[in-house]
């Protein structure tokens, strides 16, 4: 029994890792654009298919495929910024709808390029660590955990210590004030879009051997990400990470000890409860009259 619990904790840590990367990317984009990127799940899907193409298809080394996936999806983010987000900056609903349009396009491209069937990818490594008696962590999953720690730390340092990071935070708090400071809004937006999208891409790429990509894999991930950013208080990076960890543990444990449908239900009900008690999320600000 204690083995099962320990194993579930390990699984939860893995889930928390990829969920927080996805959610942080979404929050970052929201921060600078004021728009919820509905296509975020499809960016994740694009990352996974980069690995399908380069690693499975062209037999390039796994990590090369992952890095290319991250950059490629980051560029997709720039495409979105250029094509519509910029024009729709103060129009949250318009931005949401446009990103839904982009989601449909990405899905279709994936269907045309790879078909609707699941793509099975051979693992890049068979190795695993035995943490305790019978408690296993595959290297494939370890990569995701390590990537989350490294990338989130790097992002934290970038946001706190560099001029751009500082500007980006200023911009997320108050676009007008930031503009008054003489910060080039467009440049900041582009950097945030690149990073936000790239994070989704790298998660898709790293988890591709673990999940068997399909063109529609983005759907469930975006639902999860929404729950997380709402619980964390939209626009709160730290909140997103905390909420991701919380959600990952609850969801993984309920899945293990009951089943997946109940876990989804518990997650949603928890989120509703948080919203009922604090309608702007756990870490969100209160509004004033």
């Amino acid at each position: 029994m204690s083995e099962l619990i320990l194993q579930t904790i390990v699984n939860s840590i893995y889930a928390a890792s990829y969920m927080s990367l996805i959610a942080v990317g979404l929050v970052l984009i929201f921060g600078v654009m004021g728009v919820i990127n509905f296509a975020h799940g499809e960016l994740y899907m694009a990352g996974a298919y980069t690995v399908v193409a380069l690693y499975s298809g062209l037999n390039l080394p796994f990590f090369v495929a992952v890095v290319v996936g991250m950059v490629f999806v980051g560029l997709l983010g720039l495409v979105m910024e250029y094509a519509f987000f910029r024009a729709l900056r103060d129009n949250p609903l318009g931005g949401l709808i446009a990103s839904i349009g982009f989601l449909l396009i990405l899905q279709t491209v994936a269907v045309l390029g790879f078909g609707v069937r699941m793509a099975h990818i051979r693992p890049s490594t068979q190795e695993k660590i035995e943490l305790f008696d019978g408690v296993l962590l595959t290297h494939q999953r370890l990569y995701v955990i390590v990537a989350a720690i490294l990338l989130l730390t790097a992002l934290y340092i970038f946001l706190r210590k560099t001029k751009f990071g500082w500007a980006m935070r200023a911009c997320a708090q108050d676009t007008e004030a930031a503009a008054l400071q003489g910060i080039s809004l467009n440049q900041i937006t582009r950097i945030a879009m690149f990073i936000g999208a790239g994070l989704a891409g790298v998660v898709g790429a790293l988890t591709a051997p673990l999940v068997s990509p399909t063109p529609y894999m983005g759907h469930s991930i975006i639902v999860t990400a929404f729950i997380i950013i709402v619980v964390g208080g939209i626009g709160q990076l730290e909140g997103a990470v905390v909420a991701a960890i919380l959600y990952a543990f609850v969801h993984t444990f309920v899945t293990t000890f009951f089943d997946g449908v109940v876990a989804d239900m518990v997650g949603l009900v928890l989120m509703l409860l948080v919203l009922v008690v604090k309608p702007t999320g756990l870490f969100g600000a209160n509004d004033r009259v």
Partner: protein
Amino acid sequence: MSDSKTTITVWIFALTLLAGLLVLPQLLSYSQREIAVFLIINVLLVVSYRLMTLTGEWSLGHVVIMGVGAYASALFSKRLGVPVPLSMFLGASTAGLTAVVLSFPLFRMKGFYFLIGSFAAGEVIRLIWKYFTFPFGGAKGLNLIPSFPDIGWISFFDPVNYYYLCLIVVSVSLFILYRVERSRFGLTFHALHWQDKLAESVGVNTFRYRMLAFTLASFFAGLSGALYAHYIGTVNPTRFDVEEMVYVLIWAIVGGTATFYGPIVGVVALTIVNDVLLRALGFDTIRPMIYGAVLIASVLFMPDGLESIFPKLKRLMMGRKTEPATKSEAGEIP
């Protein structure tokens, strides 16, 4: 233009439209007749959705509420033997009642939080359908739902007859929704959207009015679901998932929500593009892509929706420049 003249124009327009709708099925192929049935049902769905958006809140649960009507009506008729016309009404009422209950948690939230809250509530309902095989049939859903009983020699198995039935039900529903909007209720809903604090300060119970809009919208969404269920004979959780909701959003936004007719224009135009043109061209796989491109183009280049074309056309036809339409015209039929 004088008021009475406007009224006459509206009547002529309405009668022509009605005549057109009456002969329409005769001009269509069998599969197109089926599309016409669904189109009429979707018109009710999207117009009821717009009533909700008048208060400024955008829900992502509307299709699930439609599903509540569908499931409830199916269960009432199938498991309890309630006659179908009555079960449809009961189904719609169940959907309305669901909205009453959901109002309590959901209207603590606003804007994006409401959007997500309504989405979560909808997903919880869908998971309940999925999880409880009794009475909801689990992931496979319900089938062999009783169909609408024959009236004399009229069988509603025939899409043409069902089309006429839907036409009647939907027309009456649209009339009610239109009356609601033109009454003080409509004014109050708009007021909640633009300045809920001011509305409150002159005595508007904002919660009650939000709940009223939500309940009415849900009742008619539920009715559209019931119409759907008894035609197609089967419902399942996937039919009412968020992707369907996205379509409703798209219809409403591409059509424009400032006027009553905007969403109708949206659903009709996009259904023709999607189900008739693209299907005829055999572009089945790339259909979503074209849809997506249309969507992006329409938010970028037509931010007020298709409805904004009509005042422009009217000005063109009248051959002179008049004041462009302003938002205060919201809710008026030209």
